[in-house]
């Protein structure tokens, strides 16, 4: 170790830091004599764009199936189950990924969802759901949250891909066209009321309305 490293970080270090902060503040509030106001405004604008874009990119990065399935809770349970459903492979080759159904495409909703997701990171780190059994024990609660969310936003995510207006009931199966005409087009029910468990296995359904 050199002598320089051994310099005691006591009072001297603190006063130096404080003085530096004061000087910095002075510089910051002093009107610029070097750059014109226009240049400064422009620089601020560009920096703003970069920060906003960076934030957006960070959100986009976490908004991928790769990110979601990075956690074994998601990969070994819900993702494994999704693979056998029509939303993973179908004749048209259009796929629905986790964020298509679970993170709203709307900006403010998006941030609200991310804040809620912090709780999941907590659950991951502290291993509240680290085995399949524990996941199944918790499944009803998680599913209830999702159903409540779909119910509250009138199945917004489903409708991002499936629009009731674009449904050609003459092309649908008889049961589908009857049910959609009676309850969907009249606004009496929303997709999630009738289409539970289309993407993952169901939790214990006793007590869920319409099931026994």
């Amino acid at each position, binding site marked *: 170790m050199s002598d320089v490293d051994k310099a005691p970080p006591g009072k001297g270090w603190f006063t130096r830091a404080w003085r530096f902060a004061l000087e910095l503040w002075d510089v910051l509030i002093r009107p610029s004599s070097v750059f014109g106001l226009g240049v400064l405004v422009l620089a601020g604008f560009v920096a703003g764009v970069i920060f906003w874009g960076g934030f957006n990119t960070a959100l986009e990065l976490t908004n991928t199936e790769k990110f979601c399935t990075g956690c074994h809770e998601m990969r070994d349970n819900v993702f494994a189950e999704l693979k056998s*459903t029509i939303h993973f492979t179908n004749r048209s080759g259009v796929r629905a990924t986790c964020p298509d159904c679970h993170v709203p495409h709307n900006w403010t909703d998006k941030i609200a969802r991310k804040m809620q997701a912090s709780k999941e990171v907590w659950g991951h780190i502290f291993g509240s759901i680290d085995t399949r059994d524990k996941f199944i024990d918790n499944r009803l609660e998680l599913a209830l949250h999702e159903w409540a969310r779909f119910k509250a936003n009138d199945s917004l995510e489903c409708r991002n891909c499936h629009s009731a207006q674009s449904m050609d009931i003459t092309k649908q*199966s008889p049961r589908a066209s009857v049910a959609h005409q009676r309850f969907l087009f009249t606004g009496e029910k929303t997709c999630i009321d009738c289409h539970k468990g289309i993407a993952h296995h*169901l939790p214990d359904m006793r007590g*869920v309305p*319409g*099931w*026994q």
Partner: protein
Amino acid sequence: MIGKSAIVVLAIALIAASSSLLAQGVKSSLRGPAPLNEEGPAPPMTPMRNTAEREIRNYPEQPPVIPHSIDGYQVDMNGNKCLSCHARARTGESQAPMVSITHFMDRDGQFLASVSPRRYFCTECHVPQNVTTPPVTNDFVDIDSILNRAAPGGHR
């Protein structure tokens, strides 16, 4: 002498029978033209019949076939998708026929309050149908045809 010619006749009959069997085995085989020791190409999957129109039962005790697709319908310990339409309380909304009263009976003929455990796994008895031509024709004749065949006044 008789014994010898009998053996010859028997041998010829055997050869004829087995070769005709062999020829038949190749021609009318359900496996198609693929040789026995090879696996032929899988036939294309046929679509499920999905008209939701009831099909005639072949005899009164027959579990009716399912006239609609059941892809992805979960029936296990956690839930029964079939009963979300066919249960008594659900038929108003789904307009599906209710599971009949026999489905509430236990093995002693006692009626239970809800669907009996032995009738819970519906596809044990009810199966969906595919739109396809069966490789083997069926010459089943239902009881009404047999009853009608009987001459009037004849024995029934």
